[in-house]
């Protein structure tokens, strides 16, 4: 007997009789003999819950988790504080054991939090419509590129070299197979090269930028917006929602499509996933958007309720003409974000953003004071910054790790020419003590 399968011998006998067959094997008689699997799967035996727990605990103990470390590593996955409330709500099984809300009468819980997610993200980004979420920030960016092509029927998409290098890779993959030409706008001084925007032409559907960009620098969006719209291309902005507590929103800049990674909003770092992609747009482009959208309506008695709407865009209706093949969302992660944003509220999101910018600037100044670093890119930063060091990056990493600190990202991971350029991330969770300690350790590195 297995604890998830309630079938008793007696049940089985009774059911087989009712079906009119002799054995369970008879129920598989439609599988031709030559493709039957006639041995036992070579995987593992069945383990009791106690044994499973031991095996899993042992595996997890082979990881060094961030609870025991102060992390200065970011680059798309961030160590922001997650209030206890978030996990408690997300652990309610009425939420996590439900399916996509296709029967709205018994899914109002899911539908309403999606509506609230769309509302809160709409407020933060300044966009008219945000969908129910996408797989992650990188795939949301790729979907935005495809969406832009659908809007204006142009053939190319331009992307700034200052976006996250792995987002760029995902974009390349999607565009290659979709047969969309991708143009790279070069970077200069760690920012999108404004001269490079001349590469866009009448075939360019959209320009994709990230703000703050991969190097943590706040881009000159106003000028990029102008060049983009002068060319009648769409502006796609990838943003970190936490930064929008203080940084000018895509809506305020006049962006057409916004995307981003919402992991910062109460979602554990989880070794890279599940995370929370989001995509939004102006009202004009709403019906060209991929993915689910929840809308407000009323029932036959006039009572307020929510449904999935604009479904004629989606694969289950439009099939090969659908706006995307996506047929899920990161619903549970959207729930975490919605609870996080409810907890933080209007003031909290600003406070977090302010602590990030102030602590990051403090750390940067102190690091520069050691004389072992120099800034190679100018411009205002938010919670991340790049410094070039005269020290050995590997040695820094090791020295910090030995003292329970996860050090910055070595940019040579993505670009061999960026040797000894380090991307530091400082969130509101880092204390003065931790920052000072990190600097002291680095000072000792030979």
């Amino acid at each position, binding site marked *: 007997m297995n604890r998830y399968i309630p079938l008793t011998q007696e049940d089985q006998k009774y059911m087989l009789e009712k079906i009119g067959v002799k054995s369970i094997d008879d129920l598989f008689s439609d599988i031709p003999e030559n493709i039957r699997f006639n041995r036992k799967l070579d995987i593992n035996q069945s383990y009791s819950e106690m044994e499973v727990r031991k095996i899993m605990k042992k595996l997890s103990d082979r990881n060094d988790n961030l609870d025991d470390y102060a992390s200065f590593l970011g680059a798309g996955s961030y160590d922001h504080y997650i209030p206890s409330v978030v996990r408690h709500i997300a652990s309610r099984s009425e939420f996590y054991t439900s399916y996509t809300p296709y029967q709205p009468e018994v899914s109002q819980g899911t539908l309403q939090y999606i509506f609230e997610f769309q509302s809160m993200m709409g407020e933060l980004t300044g966009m008219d419509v945000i969908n129910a979420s996408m797989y992650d920030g990188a795939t949301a960016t790729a979907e935005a590129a495809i969406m832009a092509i659908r809007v204006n029927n142009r053939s190319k998409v331009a992307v700034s070299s200052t976006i996250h290098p792995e987002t760029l890779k995902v974009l390349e993959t999607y565009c290659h197979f979709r047969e969309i030409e991708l143009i790279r706008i070069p970077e200069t001084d760690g920012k999108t090269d404004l001269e490079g925007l001349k590469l866009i032409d009448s075939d360019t559907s959209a320009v994709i930028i990230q703000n703050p960009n991969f190097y943590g620098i706040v881009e000159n969006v106003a000028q990029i917006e102008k060049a983009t719209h002068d060319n009648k291309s769409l502006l796609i902005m990838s943003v970190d929602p936490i930064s929008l507590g203080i940084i000018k929103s895509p809506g305020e800049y006049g962006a057409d499509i916004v995307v981003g990674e919402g992991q910062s909003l109460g979602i554990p770092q989880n070794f890279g996933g599940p995370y929370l992609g989001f995509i939004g747009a102006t009202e004009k482009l709403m*019906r060209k958007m991929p993915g689910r959208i929840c809308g407000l309506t009323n029932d036959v008695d006039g009572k307020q309720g929510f449904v999935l709407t*604009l*479904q*004629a*865009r989606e694969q289950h*209706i*439009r099939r090969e*003409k659908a706006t995307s093949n996506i047929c899920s969302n990161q619903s549970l992660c959207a729930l975490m974000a919605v609870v996080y944003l409810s907890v933080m509220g209007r003031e909290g999101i600003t406070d977090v953003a302010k602590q990030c910018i102030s602590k990051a600037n403090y750390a940067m100044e102190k690091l520069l004071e050691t004389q072992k670093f120099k800034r190679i890119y100018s411009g205002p930063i938010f919670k991340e910054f790049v410094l070039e060091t005269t020290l050995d990056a590997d040695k820094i990493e090791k020295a910090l790790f030995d003292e329970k600190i996860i050090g910055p990202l070595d940019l040579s991971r993505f670009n061999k020419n960026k040797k000894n350029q380090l991307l530091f991330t400082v969130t509101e969770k880092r204390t003065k003590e931790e920052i000072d300690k990190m600097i002291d350790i680095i000072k000792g590195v030979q």
Partner: protein
Amino acid sequence: MKILEGLYYAKSHEWLRIEDGEAFVGISDFAQHELGDIVFVDLPSVGDEFDAQDSFGAVESVKAASDIYMPVSGVILAVNEMLEESPELINEDAYENWIIKIKITDETDIEVLMNSVQYEEHIQEEE
């Protein structure tokens, strides 16, 4: 099911009305009925040029989306902007509420279209 005389019909259920040298295109009463409550009409842009049988837009209900095709080759002169706000007008009167006004670029395309009698037969066959 209303089928208006004096219009040309395409197999894909669009109608074409030519009056005073102007040509209008819409969908038939049969088509609107099949779709149910229309919630959105995806309109082309003025100046767009299409060949006969090209898809120039779509009509959507809650559970279905249907492309609409040019009955003849032509250039879009105007779109019925009232449909942007009130797509249900097509449900109310599919013939009164045209979708696009066009300039026909190939008059010979008209020859293959059906008249109202032929269209009625066509519907019966489909059913």
